[in-house]
């Protein structure tokens, strides 16, 4: 056989050179997706009554397996170093492994909360887990993507499952409304994101993140209009997913309407995935252009911090309040993005990680308290909770205080680190706004805590009807009287009182805000049917809540392991 003939045959049927696939680098993603398919198969084959139970079991096993695989990856990356695999599409580094650990944990906690919800609401079986697992795998893809197209792929895998999850409770019309709003706005933002990718590709000639960084470091783009437009559109796409102001409009409605466990999942996983991709794209690929995008992120951060905190003050619906609070927290995480250095990235990663525990734990309590129908989200439902169920109230109080950034919780350190990163980056105004908004935010977290530690009966209103003249002192006094007035709250009276003092100090600084807060505090009439009735707490939800509280407190007191974890994730950052 002559060489030319051989060449001819080879040319006729050219073999595609498939890239070498390093399966360990995508193992948690494969486990999540495989677990989702396995749950569909098994739940289709077992009897109807067993479906939810089997689904929960398999989902827990899947999440634990993904967590184990992520930790194996962590050891592997620490030993052998970071690398780019699968034809440059996937980055296998500490950063991606960190996000995979975060998402695995969020998934595990969501399954624990979701089991009780599914049994109570009777809205369907393990489909919740299947969709959540797929969504989580999308967030993992976003975390390890090394190419703009792969980021988009992960974004869509994550979002499409979330749209369906938002509509999961078909007995609530709000759930369908939330899904429709999320779907329409989400598809729109995805389209904007893709257009951003196209413009960046047009300006740099590649969608691969290291190649873009390489191009930008070697070439000076004379007229960089296309590049800047692409950057702006990418930022809009990410801003939508992380619910940064002014791209936050969907979030209160969707958070309020979606089933409560799904809301917690959304707040944790969608944020983790989107922030991971945002950090990787902007800090590593467009690091050379930081002078252009830092001011935009600066503005987004300030708007998110202020708008989130101020609008949360006037919410009566706890889920809606938590939605605005989540916008405020996104603003804090943006501080780390804006700093755009190793310290900022580490602070943002730490924030995302500890926020996962706080928000899913909070929504575990919200889920349990909402009762059958998932409707009891009004603040009056929380009134007197400490007397009825002191453990549940204590757990929620700790998680809310952690979100407010009270010391000896992980939330304090998270806020401290991002603010320190902003100060290091000489963004003093931003750091000041962040601290002020944190003080404002303390009000609405404390408002729930005060409601819980007030007596359920009419006697609780005497504190609320205090004249609003002494604004700052009024809030502090109220918190103090509420804490000491509750007989069951002997253990918790201390932190609430202390936090009330902090709120009072803030009130002196911002009396206008204090007035507003007092105004909305006064109209909490407890409904008689709620008073004196306890809600059943499923064992798995209690486990999730216990894990979240234990993590928040233990690693708030002993912060070194998690801080070190986040810091090492950035050291291995490609």
């Amino acid at each position, binding site marked *: 056989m002559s060489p030319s003939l051989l060449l001819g045959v080879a040319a006729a049927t050219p073999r595609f050179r498939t890239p070498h696939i390093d399966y360990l680098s995508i193992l948690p993603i494969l486990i999540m997706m495989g677990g989702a398919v396995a749950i569909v198969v098994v739940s289709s*084959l077992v009897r109807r009554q067993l479906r939810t139970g089997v689904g929960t079991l398999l989902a827990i096993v899947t999440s634990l397996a993904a967590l184990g695989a992520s930790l194996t990856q962590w050891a592997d990356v620490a030993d052998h170093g970071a690398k780019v695999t699968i034809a440059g599409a996937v980055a296998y580094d500490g950063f991606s492994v960190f996000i995979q650990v975060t998402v695995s944990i969020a998934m595990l906690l969501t399954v624990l909360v979701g089991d009780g919800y599914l049994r109570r609401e009777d809205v369907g079986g393990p489909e919740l887990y299947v969709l959540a697992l797929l969504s989580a795998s999308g967030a993992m893809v976003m975390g390890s993507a090394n190419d703009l197209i792969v980021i988009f792929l992960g974004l869509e895998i994550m979002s499409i499952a979330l749209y369906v999850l938002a509509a999961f409770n078909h007995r609530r019309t709000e759930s369908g409304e939330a899904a429709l709003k999320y779907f329409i706005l989400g598809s729109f933002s995805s389209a904007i994101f893709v257009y951003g990718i196209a413009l960046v590709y047009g300006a740099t000639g590649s969608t691969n993140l290291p190649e873009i960084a390489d191009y930008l470091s070697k070439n000076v783009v004379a007229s960089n209009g296309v590049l800047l437009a692409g950057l702006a559109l990418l930022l809009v796409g990410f801003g939508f997913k992380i619910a940064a102001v002014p791209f936050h409009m969907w979030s209160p409605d969707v958070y309020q309407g979606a089933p409560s466990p799904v809301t917690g999942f959304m707040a944790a996983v969608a944020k983790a995935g989107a922030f991971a991709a945002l950090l990787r794209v902007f800090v590593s690929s467009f690091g050379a252009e930081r002078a252009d995008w830092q001011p935009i992120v600066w503005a987004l951060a300030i708007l998110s911090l202020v708008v989130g905190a101020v609008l949360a003050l006037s919410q009566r619906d706890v889920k809606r309040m938590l939605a605005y609070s989540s916008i405020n927290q996104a603003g804090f995480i943006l501080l780390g993005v804006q700093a755009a250095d190793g310290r900022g990235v580490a602070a943002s990663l730490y924030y995302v990680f500890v926020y996962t525990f706080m928000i899913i734990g909070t929504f575990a309590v919200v889920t349990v308290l909402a009762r059958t129908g998932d409707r009891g989200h009004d603040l009056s439902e929380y009134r007197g909770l400490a007397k009825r169920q002191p453990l549940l109230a204590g757990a929620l109080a700790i998680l809310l205080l952690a979100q407010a950034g009270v010391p000896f919780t992980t939330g304090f350190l998270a806020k401290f680190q991002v603010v320190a990163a902003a100060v290091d980056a000489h963004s003093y105004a931003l750091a000041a706004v962040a601290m002020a908004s944190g003080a404002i935010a303390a009000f609405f977290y404390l408002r729930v805590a005060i409601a819980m530690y007030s007596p359920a009966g009419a006697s609780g209103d005497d504190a609320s009807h205090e004249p609003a003249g002494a604004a700052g002192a009024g809030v502090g006094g109220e918190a103090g009287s509420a804490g000491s007035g509750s007989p069951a709250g002997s253990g918790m009276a201390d932190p609430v009182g202390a936090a009330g003092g902090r709120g009072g100090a803030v009130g002196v600084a911002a009396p206008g805000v204090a007035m507003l807060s007092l105004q909305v505090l006064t109209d909490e009439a407890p409904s008689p*049917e709620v008073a004196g009735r306890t809600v059943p707490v499923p064992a798995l939800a209690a486990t999730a809540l216990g894990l979240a509280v234990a993590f928040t407190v233990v690693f708030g007191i002993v912060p070194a392991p998690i801080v070190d974890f986040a810091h090492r994730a950035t050291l291995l950052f490609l």
Partner: protein
Amino acid sequence: MDQYLPILVLIVLGLLFAALSFVGSSMLAPKKRPTAAKVAPYECGIVPDIEPPSRFPVRFYLVAMIFIIFDIEIVFLYPWAVVFHQLGTFGLVEILVFAGIVFVSFLYLVSNGALSWAPAKHLERAMPSRTSDSTIARISGNPDPLASGPPVASPDVEPAAAAASGPGQAA
């Protein structure tokens, strides 16, 4: 700038297509519009004063979904078959994984009764808290201790209705 010419051409073609569709439909469509009486549903000659509900079984959606599942599978199978030899073993394994996942969705639909046209055996209760016992208890006025739903605050309020209206506004 030459490489952007096809995009421009595509935009022009798209606009032309939209415009020509309107022109064509206005030229070809019948000029006589149907009157209101013509499009109204026929109810034995009586003029309907409310819009009658149009009913058709929701199972048709499930059948449509089965169709879409296999439609999508074919959409991906066809280009794969064209380059089957070039892809080699890797391509074969990948398409088997894909077909397996598609088959799982079919399994899911069948297990949910998409292909069972007999009368449904598993009717899910719309309101689990309402049973015939609870209705008897509600009418007779004494609350039934066996009723699992939220306790009846006042005898004239249905438990499910009370839960739906929200606890905040109860007497």
